[in-house]
């Protein structure tokens, strides 16, 4: 079931005018920000389908940038997010794409600074609910509703077990888990949704395990 909570239906509390095109867009931006771990210096945002056709009217652009600035759906600063970002020196580019995507409300967000880049594809499925369907070229399915750990690792025996063992040691319960890879034996991505926020020291410990390349988290 895509929707699990009554507050997906009666909620979120948000700045208007559209739950999918404003609140959902803010959430996509905020997940990108959370995964990037810091405020990006630039953002190239491609909009598809209904997002591309109506983003100006719905404030989708403003909301996505609000998310990149770490604003929640009910943060009134969303209204001025583009101005705030520009004042901070963030370079923004919006691209209206003609390509047909599986979901009508799709955004591809590429953000970065001099230390790195992140590319993410998010869809806004209605009522403010979103899913992240691609991250740095890996296909995944992430709701952004729960705290999550994302682990980039080498596709080798035991990598998944070692991560699971560490989480078990700290009594962290796994709610949902997915593994994706581009090619056998190359780089892979573990997406692990957990019930509570994860302490940074656990992330550092995970990162030191064999075959683990990078660990990031999404906080609730």
């Amino acid at each position, binding site marked *: 079931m895509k929707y699990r909570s009554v507050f997906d239906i*009666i909620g979120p509390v948000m700045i208007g005018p559209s739950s999918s095109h404003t609140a959902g867009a803010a959430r996509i931006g905020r997940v990108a920000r959370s995964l990037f771990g810091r405020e990006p210096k630039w953002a190239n945002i491609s909009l598809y389908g209904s997002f591309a056709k109506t983003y100006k009217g719905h404030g989708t652009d403003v909301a996505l940038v609000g998310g990149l600035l770490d604003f929640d759906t009910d943060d009134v600063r969303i209204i001025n997010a583009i101005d705030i970002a520009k004042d901070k020196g963030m370079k923004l580019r919006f691209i209206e794409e003609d390509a047909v995507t599986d979901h009508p409300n799709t955004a591809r967000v590429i953000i970065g600074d001099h230390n790195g880049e992140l590319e993410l594809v998010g869809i806004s499925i209605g009522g403010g609910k979103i899913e992240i369907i691609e991250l740095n070229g890996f296909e995944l399915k992430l709701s952004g509703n729960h705290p999550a750990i994302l682990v980039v690792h080498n596709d080798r025996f035991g990598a998944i077990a070692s991560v699971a063992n560490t989480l078990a040691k700290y009594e962290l319960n796994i709610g949902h888990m997915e593994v994706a890879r581009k090619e056998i034996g190359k780089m892979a991505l573990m997406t692990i949704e957990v019930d509570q926020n994860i302490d940074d020291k656990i992330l550092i410990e995970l990162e030191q395990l064999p075959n683990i390349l990078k660990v990031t988290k999404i906080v609730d």
Partner: protein
Amino acid sequence: MFRNVAELVELAISQNKKISEIMIEQEVTVTGRTREEVLAFMDRNLAVMEQAVEKGIKGVTSHSGLTGGDAVLMQKYIEKGNFLSGETILDAVSKAVATNEVNAAMGTICATPTAGSAGVVPGTLFAVQKKLNPTREQMISFLFTAGAFGFVVANNASISGAAGGCQAEVGSAAGMAAAAIVELAGGTPVQCAEAMAITLKNMLGLVCDPVAGLVEVPCVKRNAMGAANAMVAADMALAGITSRIPCDEVIDAMYKIGQTMPTALKETAQGGLAATPTGRELEAKIFGIPLKEK
């Protein structure tokens, strides 16, 4: 976990509970939050709805200037007393409009189930409040009942205008409101489902065709009529009128209609009212761009 309206109603009947109670209990189970936390969270959402209506009743205008002030006009008209339909229904219309005018003006609202359809549920709730004098707890329950039906629609069909047209947004909202009104007025779980079915049947096929892509025209007035539809359907269900097509099948029909609806009529501002000469003219004026082929 209930998967459809039939299971929801069956749970309520077999446990001799209200629909709202089934929803509250499921939320506690699924999220691991306490009952008090779940109720407090809904109370906060209710407070946001109250504030939005209060603000809209006083009068707001959107940035585009397309919408605003109609909630005020309706309240003044009701005060004069020579209306034709009925006070409760017009009050619901006014308060639904108030909420959506605030939404269009980028104010703070609670999506129910979406922002574009956020007026219907609170509009009807605050209108029937005058008539039924519910406790705060009962008003919170109203939102759980509405949420239970919306939950079924969201999981079995869609609540997105881009995916299913306006029938999925205002249609769903109106059905949710009708069911919640019935429970608050003392109707049975079966009558709640009948009210939802009757409402949604009358919203089938409604397209999403916002002028200039803005959640304003015709969204605000669709919320007005969604609220009116919900009120009448609730009265019909309470009168004992039933839907010949079961609620779950109506929801399924809505989903299939949404799938076959052309993209131009699903929140792309390419068809319907958005593509009328006046719609195009407004679009050009708002964005300061010349009229172009879309």
